[in-house]
């Protein structure tokens, strides 16, 4: 296949990716958009396989079959609740692949690329650095979300010095590779240092900040692919990589805004209670009211507007189907049900939307924070299921609180707030929630799914 022809095919593939992403602007067109993106990928792969430079197909086919089988198996068997860690892992593999391709381009440049040497060396080091850090960072994110990695050191001064040192080392090694490209050991040392840096940056990050990290790693994997595009002088890689880079940065920004945090804070600091923060005993002492499902059902009986606020606790308990059943029952009894979705509820951007969609909740009933906050004063019941920091009124009222200024769902303004939660344990911010002790609040202590089922049973018995 001639160079012109293959470039035209790559251009068509790039257009497929852009239109595919554009399809995601509406749930109606999204599946076709995704299909279009996948078709673009298939086109790019087939064109590359037919390219005349390729001499040995056996190894490539083996790689495609093995990778495809692993990817398909994981994608088709993963639980919707485990989606964040799955996406993180896939992301890491993409980043790792970019670093490896850059390595092969350094080993056999004449074979792979015809870009000017300086572009080859600079882009290769960028791809190696970003790709390797994305790979290990994503794997740490996967392990943390999976619950297999519980180690979470406090990000302290020493750690910042180590990270700064590692990053400087990476830049030094990158400069060395550029000046002295035959020293391939320097490239591998760079990859190793970047891999350690990826681990060091991700390990101290807590669960609440995971949506930011996953969005950021997504952006990195795109930038790594774009850098590989510069290595190979290949436009389809540059275009696709920068699309993904832009997408990741936009999502990162949305997540940071939703938490009133700066990106620098998420990356280099942790959210800890300040000295002035009230203790749990002061906040809760004797004021928390616990209710039974039967009592709760009586309140639901007269409710006209119910707003359900799902959190990570709902995801962990796999309670989304039970929640949908409860909502259906309430609707049959004439109540209106809405869902309030905080942007950082869950462990990745839009995580709750996917879980509720899995349970067949119509997306017309899902409201974003700014759309629903005015409705809480009219709501008879706000039902909070496993959410904590995103409904903590401290964020609005206490300027000394570590979460002060973070936009929250104003559930405390509803006539009655019911909170399904296992215990009074704090959320990821580590601070008590005065909502639990509010006069209009009732605690339903228990597992998300069990408690919702008991609520349904109690409602049916009335």
């Amino acid at each position: 296949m001639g160079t012109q022809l293959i470039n035209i095919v790559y251009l068509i593939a790039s257009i497929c990716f852009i239109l595919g992403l554009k399809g995601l602007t509406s749930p109606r067109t999204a599946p076709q958009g995704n299909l279009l993106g996948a078709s673009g990928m298939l086109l790019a792969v087939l064109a590359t396989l037919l390219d005349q430079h390729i001499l040995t197909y056996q190894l490539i086919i083996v790689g495609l079959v093995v990778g495809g089988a692993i990817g398909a198996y994981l994608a088709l068997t993963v639980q919707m609740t485990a989606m964040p860690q799955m996406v993180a892992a896939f992301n890491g593999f993409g980043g790792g692949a970019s670093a490896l391709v850059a390595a092969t381009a350094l080993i056999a440049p004449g074979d792979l690329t015809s870009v000017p040497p300086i572009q080859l060396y600079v882009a290769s080091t960028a791809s190696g650095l970003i790709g390797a850090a994305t790979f290990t960072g994503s794997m740490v994110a996967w392990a943390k979300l999976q619950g297999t990695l519980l180690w979470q050191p406090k990000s302290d001064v020493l750690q910042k010095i180590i990270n700064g040192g590692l990053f400087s080392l990476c830049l030094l090694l990158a400069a060395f590779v550029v000046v002295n490209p035959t020293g391939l050991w320097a490239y591998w040392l760079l990859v190793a240092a970047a891999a350690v840096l990826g681990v060091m940056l991700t390990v101290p990050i807590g669960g609440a900040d995971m949506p930011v990290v996953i969005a950021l790693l997504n952006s990195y994997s795109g930038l790594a692919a774009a850098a590989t595009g510069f290595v190979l002088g290949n436009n389809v890689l540059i275009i696709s990589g920068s699309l993904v880079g832009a997408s990741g940065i936009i999502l990162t920004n949305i997540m940071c805004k939703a938490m009133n945090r700066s990106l620098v804070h998420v990356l280099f600091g942790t959210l800890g209670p300040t000295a002035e923060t009230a203790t749990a005993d002061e906040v809760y002492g004797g004021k928390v009211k616990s209710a039974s499902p039967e009592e709760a059902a009586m309140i639901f009986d007269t409710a006209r507007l119910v707003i359900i606020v799902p959190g990570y606790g709902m995801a962990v308990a796999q309670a989304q189907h039970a929640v949908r059943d409860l909502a259906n029952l309430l609707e049959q009894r004439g109540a209106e049900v809405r869902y309030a979705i905080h942007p950082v509820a869950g462990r990745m951007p839009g995580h709750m939307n996917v879980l509720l969609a899995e349970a067949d909740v119509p997306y017309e009933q899902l409201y974003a924070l700014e759309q629903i906050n005015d409705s809480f004063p009219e709501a008879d019941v706000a039902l909070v299921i496993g959410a904590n920091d995103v409904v903590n009124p401290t964020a609005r009222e206490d300027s000394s609180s570590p979460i002060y200024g973070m936009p929250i769902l104003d559930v405390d303004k509803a006539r009655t707030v019911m909170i399904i939660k296992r215990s009074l344990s704090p959320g990821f911010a580590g601070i008590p929630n005065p909502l639990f002790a509010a006069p209009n609040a009732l605690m339903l202590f228990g597992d998300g799914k069990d408690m919702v089922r008991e609520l349904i049973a109690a409602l049916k018995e009335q």
Partner: protein
Amino acid sequence: MDMFITSVTVFLLAIFVGFEVITKVPPTLHTPLMSGSNAISGITVVGAIVAAGSKEPLVAAVLGVVAVIFATINVVGGFLVTNRMLLMFKRKKN
């Protein structure tokens, strides 16, 4: 140098296109957006195929094959998982 300038032009224009298209995606679809764009970042599979098919030396081909495996996991897994999610969103319309 010409090639470098062209590449940078393409890179910057694509970033602008990306921002324009992606800012219009509603929060409901942010997870599929993330996994879909993630699958697209697996485009590095194209580079991996070229690397795995290079004639010499052997070490380059071996690294290339590992890269093909990694990138294909990203591509196939990413698109399939996105499709699974999107079908859930679609079903309610019918």
